């Protein structure tokens, strides 16, 4: 056989093989060098120090000291041994929030250098999937940020740390009852609220001035649905911005903000059936359908997937007003700059003022090796000082009921937070109770899908209500709330 060319080709392949072999070797070397997982916590169960007299309260830097705030009352119960706690979560709001975590953890480490808390940031979208996988493999973190809607489900399955006896007595009463509701299961609680957020109506001052409207500054004066509609029509007539308002209400946020406002509910008071197919419910559906039908809002806003998209519409001047969350304030400030003056007012209401609910609570793993240390850290993390610090840096609304009268000094546009402060008080109790049900994720998905059909496929309000009722009842039947299982 003639292989005149072959040596040339083969040598090239040989080099490649050698190269590949070398790289594989290189890779293996790296693996050997790097070692496996990070150093495990030293063996030995945490010993509660019998002589543990709590250290004298040291005021945290720059914060006022309220009772039990500066250090955990459970501090005495925590071990003096070296312990590593793995805390997994996301950074929802950007660089300021990351800084807040850094600072809060640094101050913790100064107080308790033997209890190392490592906060590992993971992407928000896959957060719960990763937690699910880790729990399934018995390798969950000691603590993580969870979703309120599924805490009770996971508690029922035995995956979450029961905090009731680990935290100071009656600690759960320190939090807004609406938020605590989704951490409570059969009288005990398995998580603690840490952040919450809500949305309000941002507006361009020039647009409202041009139509001669002064937005309300008091909750009791907030616009009704009808007034809101009139204002929208006037704004459209101005022909300055293409839409009267844009919004972040797609994907189910409108449910607490608008559905409950008409007096409708998602489920009955005994949580056994869907209650949305009522005249009030249909009225709410008709109202949001008007947003598209009357061209008040961009239809695409209903299905937006990513952060900044809706906010950008307001910044660009596509809409005169925008229903946005308080977490957008920093972004708006940085991007609108001086192009126009903007302020915020209350979400329009029908029979009563209601608002939406968000935020993430923190939970511990049932099988953590350091339950007392987790509890101690949680007490520190959810103390008045630390929540104040976190919220001021990252623009969140406080979750503690003993902070509702405090004026926080938000780093950006502190003047706007008053509206949010007032709004968060109008969280409908029945709505929160519904969210706390373990079937709420499934129902929420159904509501999102049917309301999208309402807004974008021309489905009638009556049909929408009927579909949600049918599909929802079926789902509840097959997946009853954990309290009744």
């Amino acid at each position: 056989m003639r292989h005149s060319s072959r040596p040339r080709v083969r040598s090239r392949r040989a080099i490649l093989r050698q190269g590949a072999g070398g790289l594989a070797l290189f890779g293996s070397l790296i693996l050997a060098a790097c070692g496996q997982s990070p150093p495990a916590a030293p063996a030995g169960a945490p010993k509660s120090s019998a002589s543990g007299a709590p250290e004298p309260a040291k005021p945290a830097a720059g914060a006022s000291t309220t009772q039990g705030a500066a250090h955990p009352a459970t501090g005495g119960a925590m071990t003096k041994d070296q312990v590593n706690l793995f805390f997994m979560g996301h950074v929802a709001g950007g660089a300021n929030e990351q800084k807040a975590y850094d600072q809060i953890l640094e101050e913790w480490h100064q107080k308790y250098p033997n209890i190392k808390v490592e906060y590992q940031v993971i992407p928000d979208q896959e957060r719960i999937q990763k937690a699910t996988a880790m729990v399934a493999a018995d390798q969950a973190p000691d603590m993580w940020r969870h979703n309120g809607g599924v805490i009770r489900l996971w508690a029922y399955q035995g995956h979450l740390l029961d905090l009731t006896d680990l935290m100071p007595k009656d600690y759960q009463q320190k939090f807004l009852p609406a938020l605590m509701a989704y951490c409570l299961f059969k009288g005990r609680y398995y998580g603690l609220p840490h952040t919450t957020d809500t949305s309000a109506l941002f507006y361009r001052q020039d647009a409202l001035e041009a139509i001669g409207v002064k937005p309300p500054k008091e909750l009791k004066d907030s616009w009704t649905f009808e007034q809101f509609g009139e204002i929208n029509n006037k704004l459209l007539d101005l022909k300055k911005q293409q839409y009267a308002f844009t919004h972040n209400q797609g994907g189910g946020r409108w449910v607490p903000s608008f559905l409950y406002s008409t007096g409708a509910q998602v489920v009955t008071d005994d949580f056994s059936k869907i209650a949305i197919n009522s005249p009030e419910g249909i009225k709410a559906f008709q109202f949001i359908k008007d947003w598209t039908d009357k061209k008040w809002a961009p239809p695409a806003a209903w299905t937006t997937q990513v952060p900044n998209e809706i906010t950008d519409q307001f910044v660009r001047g596509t809409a005169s007003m925008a229903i946005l969350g308080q977490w957008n304030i920093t972004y708006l400030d940085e991007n609108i700059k001086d192009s126009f003056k903007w302020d915020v007012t209350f979400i329009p209401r029908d029979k009563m003022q209601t608002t939406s609910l968000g935020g993430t609570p923190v939970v511990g793993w049932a099988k953590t090796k350091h339950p007392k240390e987790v509890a101690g850290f949680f007490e520190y993390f959810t103390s008045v000082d630390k929540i104040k610090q976190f919220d001021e840096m990252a623009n969140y609304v406080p979750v503690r009921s003993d902070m509702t009268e405090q004026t926080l000094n938000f780093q950006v546009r502190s003047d706007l937070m008053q509206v949010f402060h007032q709004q968060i008080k109008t969280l409908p109790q029945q709505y929160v109770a519904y969210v706390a049900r373990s079937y709420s994720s499934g129902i929420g998905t159904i509501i999102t899908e049917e309301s999208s059909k309402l807004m974008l496929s021309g489905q009638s309000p009556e049909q929408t209500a009927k579909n949600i009722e049918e599909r929802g009842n079926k789902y509840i039947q097959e997946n009853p709330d954990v309290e009744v299982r």
Partner: protein
Amino acid sequence: MAAQIAALPRPRPRRRLRQRDVIPYVFILPNLLLFAVFVFGPMLFSFGMSFTAWDGLGRPSFTGLNNYEKLLSDDLFLTAVRNTLLYSFGTVLPMLAISLGLALMLNSRLRGRTFFRVMIYLPVVISWVAAALVWRLIFIHPSGLMNAALESVGIPAQLWTSDPILALPAIMWMSLWKGLGFYTVIYLAGLQTIPATVYEAGMIDGASRWQLFWRITLPLLRPTTLFALIVGIIGSFEVFVPVYLMTNGGPGYASMVMVMAIYRSAFQTYQMGYASAMAVILFLAIFGVSLAQFKLFGREVEY
């Protein structure tokens, strides 16, 4: 003595023959082991879960064929099936045809063809996250690129990913953009398996360029085409990431596809057993279609 030696059984055949019989198993053994550990185990587990009602983390409860019965009357699932088929037919055949054409062009003696090869391959290389971001920008209503282009020729702006009818085509368009280079590369490699002597023979026989293509190139590309077809169809049946990133199956569930429905049931509505049943049906569909393709087109490639 000699007789005794002669009476001994003949020595075994040459060592080489034995090696040749055994060695294929040795060659495939590492892969089979890895498959067994990391793929078959989880597969069988998931298939088993399809006969239960399970929320993913608690205790599964056996429900027999219940999930399958529910699937038959589930409008969302049926929409997902329909959309997956639409997606598959709408992307695979055009993609293969266009990429074959491109590969032929890129295989010819053209100056600068490496530049063109890179251009066509670039969309394949960028991550889906980046691609989805750019295409969302392009599809923005009212002021995105696509709508600007349409309005310049008098067509009104469309909602694209928020439009129940256009959402799936928008995703298909994006997938086409992203996948073309992939199949072009495969065809480019496939064209290399055709020896020049074959063309020489054809040319000596006086065949035209077109005839060369139809009579020689295309038939000899059959193994490559079979591969691209099967891989393409399997990939299209399993499409997930572009849907997840662009529409999440919406609006409503207008752009729902099979794997998106599986994901929704597994991680949004906590019905892992139900999701597993969907996965079994998807598996059977893919298996059936692939088997059919092998039977129809695979014969020739058995040497």
